């Protein structure tokens, strides 16, 4: 009952100066909705970028990194006891590609986080159409598994991804590559490897990932056909691409499999640090901006509460003269701040969602997008609410403390 008396007084204060309450409320609503909108926008952007990046990038890649440091072979063989020098050492790479792929694939598949693994035979080649010549990448793929990892069938413009399975003579090439070589589906294309092997293929489809560097230089081929092109055995693989459940959590998987696999195990973060950096920077910017907005809103609340307390200084003195303690006064004004914080938080979450929806519908036709990107994460909303409440609590606490310290005689004496 003691508390409910304080609540009643707080309620009367809030409802008797509706204008001030609304202004304070709007400050919180603005801060929280901007926080939500900015964070949704940035994570939407990050998600879009990630999806784009992972059209051709696996979470973990296993490949033959070439021989270790062989610049001083004598030292390697005899240690430091012998002084000698070899001029122009020719390093022969005994093993190219990955051996024993079956065992490695089995091992990787056993990791609980792994959602897919696919072998590739990647070859640097020239794509030729009579005089036109483009340096590019020919990827021999396991048609089914490749699609499981990268979902390429959804990027097909012409032809069907699955046709690759039955067409050892067929290539699926990027739209931009087709364009620069003036080629269409069913046309012939010549491929020249670095070993000088030249072979004609038929274009059976085109794809567009919207990652320009891919669309301009890449072509897919059945992995068996790729091995034939290189005259390699049926076990030959240059890359193993691995996807896991949460692309952010590559480190533990990498730490577990790297020591037992005699090849380079590389996470996407290592090979694409710029992606990671860009996402992080965008996150930092959005958090900095939204916290600034919340702080400004906090100052607004602080000002309004201060004003209210200056206006009500007589009332506070009377309450204290009648026997209300400092704690009562603090709780009366803190209650008002909390009510503004909670109410503003709820309205702010709804407003933030509406703003995000509106922005999400603005057309933005670039890199395969149709509208501005937006993602809706519950955690953004909860964090905004919590930050908003903390801000109002701090902004309300200082004036409330000031009110509780008012000396009633000073005011009543006049």
């Amino acid at each position, binding site marked *: 009952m*003691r508390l409910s008396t304080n609540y009643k007084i707080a309620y009367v204060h809030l409802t008797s100066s509706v204008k001030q309450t609304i202004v304070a409320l709007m400050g919180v609503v603005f801060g929280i909705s901007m926080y939500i909108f900015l964070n949704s926008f940035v994570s939407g952007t990050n998600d879009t970028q990630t999806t784009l990046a992972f059209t051709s990038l696996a979470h973990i890649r296993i490949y033959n990194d070439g021989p270790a440091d062989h610049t001083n072979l004598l030292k390697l063989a005899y240690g430091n006891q012998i002084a000698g020098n070899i001029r122009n050492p020719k390093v022969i790479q005994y093993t190219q590609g990955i051996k024993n792929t079956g065992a490695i694939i089995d091992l990787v598949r056993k990791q609980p986080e792994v959602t897919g693994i696919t072998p590739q035979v990647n070859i640097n080649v020239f794509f030729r159409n009579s005089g036109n010549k483009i340096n590019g990448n020919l990827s021999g793929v396991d048609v089914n598994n490749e699609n499981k990892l990268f979902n390429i069938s959804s990027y097909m413009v012409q032809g069907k991804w699955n046709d690759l399975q039955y067409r050892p003579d067929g290539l699926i090439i990027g739209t931009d590559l087709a364009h620069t070589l003036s080629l269409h589906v069913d046309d012939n294309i010549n491929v020249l490897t670095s070993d000088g092997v030249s072979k004609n293929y038929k274009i059976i489809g085109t794809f567009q990932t919207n990652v320009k560097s891919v669309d301009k230089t890449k072509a897919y081929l059945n992995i068996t056909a790729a091995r034939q092109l290189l005259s390699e055995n049926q076990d030959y693989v240059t890359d193993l691409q691995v996807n896991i459940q949460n692309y952010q959590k590559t480190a533990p998987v990498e730490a577990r499999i790297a020591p037992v696999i005699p090849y380079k195990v590389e996470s996407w973060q290592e090979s694409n640090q710029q992606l990671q950096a860009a996402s992080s920077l965008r996150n930092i910017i959005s958090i900095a901006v939204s916290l600034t907005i919340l702080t400004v809103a906090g100052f607004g609340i602080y000002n309004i509460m201060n004003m209210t307390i200056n206006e009500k200084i007589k009332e506070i003195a009377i309450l204290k*003269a009648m026997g209300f303690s400092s704690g009562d006064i603090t709780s009366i004004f803190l209650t008002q701040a909390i009510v503004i914080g909670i109410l503003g938080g709820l309205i702010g979450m709804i407003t933030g969602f509406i703003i995000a929806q509106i922005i999400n519908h603005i057309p933005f036709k670039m890199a395969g997008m149709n509208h501005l990107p937006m993602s809706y994460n519950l955690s953004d909303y909860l964090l905004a609410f919590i930050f908003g409440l903390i801000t109002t609590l701090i902004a309300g606490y200082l004036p409330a403390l000031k009110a509780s310290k008012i000396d009633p005689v000073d005011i009543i004496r006049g």
Partner: protein
Amino acid sequence: MENNIALKANHIIKHFYQPEPFKVLKDLSFEVKTGEFLTLTGKSGSGKSTLLYVLSTMDTDYEGELSINGNKLTGQTRNQLAAFRNEHIGFVFQFHYLLLEFNVLDNIMLPALKLNKKSREEIEAKAYANLKLLGMEEQALKMASKLSGGQQQRVAIARALINDPSIIMGDEPTGNLDSKNTQIVFDIFKELAHERGQTIIAVTHDDDFAKNSDRIIEMSDGIIL
């Protein structure tokens, strides 16, 4: 113990330091008996209000010692004093302050709600009874800001009585009232003092009011004459 002492002031000295050092209360000592109706008189500026604020425990910045009902109040914390005021002291200010955002009934009930010893219904009934005593029952649900000065003063008196305090202090509690209402308030105070044993200390400029009380303390320049 017959003739209990309700209030004991011992060598009360008070200075104001602004705008310049100035001794307002010059070593005042006196006692007030339980159930006594005491009036404080004296010229304007003689220190009556200042003394009353010290006695009411709101002003703690003084020398000397104050006890009420045998409790030594000098040296207690502000929160302790607030709780003590809430239960034992009813105060009517010189400038009858009410909470203007609340209605008359709420104004009267707040000290009792704060004390939290009776149910809401009992408090409300008591508030209505007090209003009736002062001829104000019709205004119960009006906003305090919509009342005339005299009406506000009567509400302030009704509020001072709500917790049945052992001491009621008033700084010119009838200053804004006509003679009829002044008489009503006087009769209420007299009844509270003589029949219920509540102690009354009232500052007044009204000679008749003072003359009819049990005892007059007259002040002049910070001393008791």
